[in-house]
């Protein structure tokens, strides 16, 4: 039922950013010599942003045309496949690299290229004057290429190319200002943690090959979807494969065990944080789970596990953001928390809800990051909220757009965040009965985190834009960012406000646009969930109650948070003074990162030292040199026996004769 003629033009979507990145890189290298002598003389390099933005715009336009073309097709046949190039056909492994644009990937491409384009425009203003101007845009475009490959690939290995590609680009971009030293460490930490996730991803792919013999995502989804029953060995393999793939998602989407790299990733420039660590890369985990939703649905105990991990991460992120002083750290932990929400949605089988929250989150979180960026840009690099304050007068446009984003994030009614977050909570509540009320607990955690979200968002807004100005005036003159930066902010603000229209709750008797659009992809998973009687419906009254509860919490906690911090940092000092230990643990993300360092990294370093010095140098090498030395010692000893006296020679001869006779006797 797939449309048979191939759409080679699909390849242009990822190729445009790749070409853009190549040209920008070439420009940067070309001006290498020039810039060595005079750092500012990077005239040709200033072309780089135009090329990069052009490439992004091209990709966006192509994505939109793809979306429109898909819309014309009737739902069941909505898939534009491109000719598949035969990548690997070695040793019994046949992997061909093709691109498939289906409802899910078209949503993702639209988000990536759309938000990406805005961020590129913003970055051309933000990064002006930086020594690595061309290099920055080369990396950014390379990232978008990798992300598009990840989203559009037809086979799991194609996804993996994108998977590690984005890991590489995040490494390059986090460590962009490597002269400062600590960004390089943050970059290495991010790359290694992603690698841990990727290792799990690989194991998952091996299991899939063993189960299905192929890595083509479509065949896997169809086979599982259409299967009547599985032997228990196959069920075990499927749940293991699902678990390991989820391990990969944890690494990439910063979920509970592997999330500590995201806050450190703030070492990179702000547009990078906006694009990579809010809108696109971190969502690849969710994309993968939704893409293989039949597999996850059919793998029994993995879904609740995902829900638990999601809820736990949400709680950790939310609680840590409360006490952060650095504005970007607040947003980073908020991202971790919102991703936790998405995985909670996936865990309760609400694939469309997760994608919906993904889209809205991309809008308002990108907006918040860019807003924070423009604040930092205005304040010449100052990020500590305790040294900001009262900026609403100096940066009106940034203030208003930031406010819109914050409102969406904290879930104030009628905004996009409200609809997407409450849909997730509704689904979690609906499947509450399963696993003896596990989901009720998760729903409760979700509600608490929603409250925390509202609180820290309003605290951030209050500390940054209200209260007295806590920076010394003669050094720092806050100024509004140029139009090229604030324009994208406005566009994103509009999207954050109107984003909710994509998925209005059923109680309003309006079609849930996104759910219908994604139906062809998520049907198989929902059917399996329904088959194992995990389908769930909410009565209208219950929905109204939930909606009311959600808006009440959002408004209430936003209000208290704002008023507590309206005047300045008094509330923070008070909290730190009254509960120092709690403040400290919360500040350090429940000390998970320091525990990792102590429990995992330190012993491994000692082990490597032990191996390098003790085992390798001393034992094995010692053995090798030892044989050399013993040979020399034997020679030394036997030399002494030859001392020139005939008599002793005679003795040795006699002994020799005797030995020979004895030997002869016994042989």
């Amino acid at each position, binding site marked *: 039922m797939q449309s048979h003629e191939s759409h080679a033009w699909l390849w242009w979507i990822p190729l445009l950013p790749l070409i853009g990145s190549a040209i920008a890189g070439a420009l940067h290298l070309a001006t290498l010599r020039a810039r060595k002598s005079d750092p500012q003389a990077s005239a040709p390099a200033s072309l780089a942003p135009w090329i990069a933005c052009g490439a992004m715009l091209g990709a966006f336009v192509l994505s939109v045309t793809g979306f429109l073309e898909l819309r014309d097709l009737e739902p069941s046949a909505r898939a534009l496949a491109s000719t598949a190039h035969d990548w690997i056909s070695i040793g019994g492994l046949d992997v061909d690299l093709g691109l498939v644009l289906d409802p899910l990937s078209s949503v993702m491409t639209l988000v990536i290229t759309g938000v990406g384009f805005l961020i590129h425009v913003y970055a051309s203003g933000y990064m002006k004057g930086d020594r690595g101007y061309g290099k920055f845009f080369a990396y950014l475009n390379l990232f978008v290429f990798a992300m598009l490959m990840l989203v559009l690939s037809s086979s799991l290995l194609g996804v993996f190319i994108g998977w590690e590609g984005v890991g590489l680009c995040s490494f390059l971009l986090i460590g962009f200002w490597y002269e400062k030293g600590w960004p390089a460490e943050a970059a290495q930490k991010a790359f290694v943690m992603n690698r841990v996730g990727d290792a799990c991803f690989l194991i998952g792919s091996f299991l899939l090959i063993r189960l299905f013999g192929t890595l083509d995502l479509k065949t896997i989804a169809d086979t599982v979807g259409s299967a009547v029953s599985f032997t228990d060995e196959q069920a075990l393999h499927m749940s293991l494969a699902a678990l390991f793939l989820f391990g990969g998602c944890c690494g990439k989407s910063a979920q509970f065990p592997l999330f500590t790299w995201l806050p450190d990733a703030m070492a990179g420039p702000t547009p990078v944080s906006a694009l990579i660590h809010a809108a696109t890369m971190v969502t690849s985990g969710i994309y993968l789970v939704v893409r293989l939703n039949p597999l996850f649905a059919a793998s029994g105990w993995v879904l609740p596990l995902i829900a638990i991990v999601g809820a736990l991460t949400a709680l950790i992120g939310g609680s840590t953001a409360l006490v952060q002083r650095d504005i970007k750290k607040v947003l980073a932990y908020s991202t971790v928390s919102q991703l936790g929400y998405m995985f909670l949605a996936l865990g309760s089988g609400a694939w469309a809800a997760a994608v919906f929250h993904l889209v809205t989150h991309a809008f308002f979180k990108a907006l918040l990051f860019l807003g924070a960026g423009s604040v930092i840009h205005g304040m010449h690099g100052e990020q500590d909220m305790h040294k900001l304050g009262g900026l609403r007068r100096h940066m009106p446009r940034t203030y208003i757009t930031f406010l819109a984003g914050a409102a969406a994030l904290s879930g104030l009614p009628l905004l996009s965040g409200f609809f997407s977050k409450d849909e997730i909570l509704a689904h979690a509540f609906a499947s509450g009965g399963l696993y003896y009320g596990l989901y009720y607990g998760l729903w409760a955690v979700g509600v608490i985190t929603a409250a925390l979200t509202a609180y820290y968002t309003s605290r951030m807004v209050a500390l940054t834009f209200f209260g007295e100005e806590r920076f010394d005036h003669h050094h720092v003159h806050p100024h509004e960012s140029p139009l090229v930066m604030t324009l994208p902010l406005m566009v994103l603000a509009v999207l954050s406000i109107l984003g909710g229209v994509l998925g209005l709750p059923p109680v309003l008797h309006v079609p849930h646009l996104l759910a219908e659009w994604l139906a062809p992809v998520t049907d198989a998973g929902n059917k399996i969930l329904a088959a194992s009687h995990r389908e769930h419906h909410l009565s209208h009254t219950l929905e109204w109650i939930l909606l009311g509860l959600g808006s009440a919490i959002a408004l209430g906690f936003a209000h208290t948070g704002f008023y507590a911090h309206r005047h300045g940092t008094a509330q923070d000092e008070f909290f730190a003074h009254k509960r120092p230990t709690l403040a400290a643990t919360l500040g350090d993300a429940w000390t998970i990162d320091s525990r990792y360092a102590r429990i995992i990294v330190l012993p491994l370093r000692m082990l490597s030292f032990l191996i390098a010095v003790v085992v390798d140098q001393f034992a094995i090498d010692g053995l090798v040199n030892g044989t050399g030395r013993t040979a020399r010692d034997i020679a030394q000893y036997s030399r002494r026996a030859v001392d020139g006296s005939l*008599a*002793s020679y005679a*003795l040795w001869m*006699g*002994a020799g*004769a*005797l030995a020979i*006779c*004895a030997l002869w*006797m016994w042989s």
Partner: protein
Amino acid sequence: MSSILFYILALVALLGAAGVILAKSPMGSVISLLGTFFALAVIYLLAGFQFLAAAQILVYAGAILVLFLFVIMLLNLGAMGSRFELSFAPLQGGRARFAGAIAVALALVGLIAAQRTTLAATSAPAADAQAIDGLEGLALELFGRYSLPFQAVSVLLLATMVAVIVLAKRQRAGEHGEQPR
């Protein structure tokens, strides 16, 4: 009757051998060696090896021992009996015991080996009167099958003569003043 004679002669030979070792001066040991050779010659005779008994007397006793005598006389070692007291003293205790042990062990090995050779019980030897090594048999053997070793031995003797002459010649050069290094 002749077997008793054999045992006596065996005893003489052993004593002679012991004498060689224990004699204070080389002269003493030469003489006791002579005794051993004579005892052995007679034993060969009794065993039926007339030619070899003669050879034993002629070559061993006659030639080699005389050579020893010449050397002892030439270097007049005999007179320095007193100096040789020290030399007679066997090597330090430890070594001597070790040497003794080796000698005893070798003797034992010899005995066991002799035991082990499965020789048929010798009934009364019929008549070992006529010689086993009759000349024509011996000559056939020596110049027939063993002609090659025979030639080899002749070469050996030639080499020995050359060696001895060379060693001796160096002596004379020595006398002309420059020390032979």
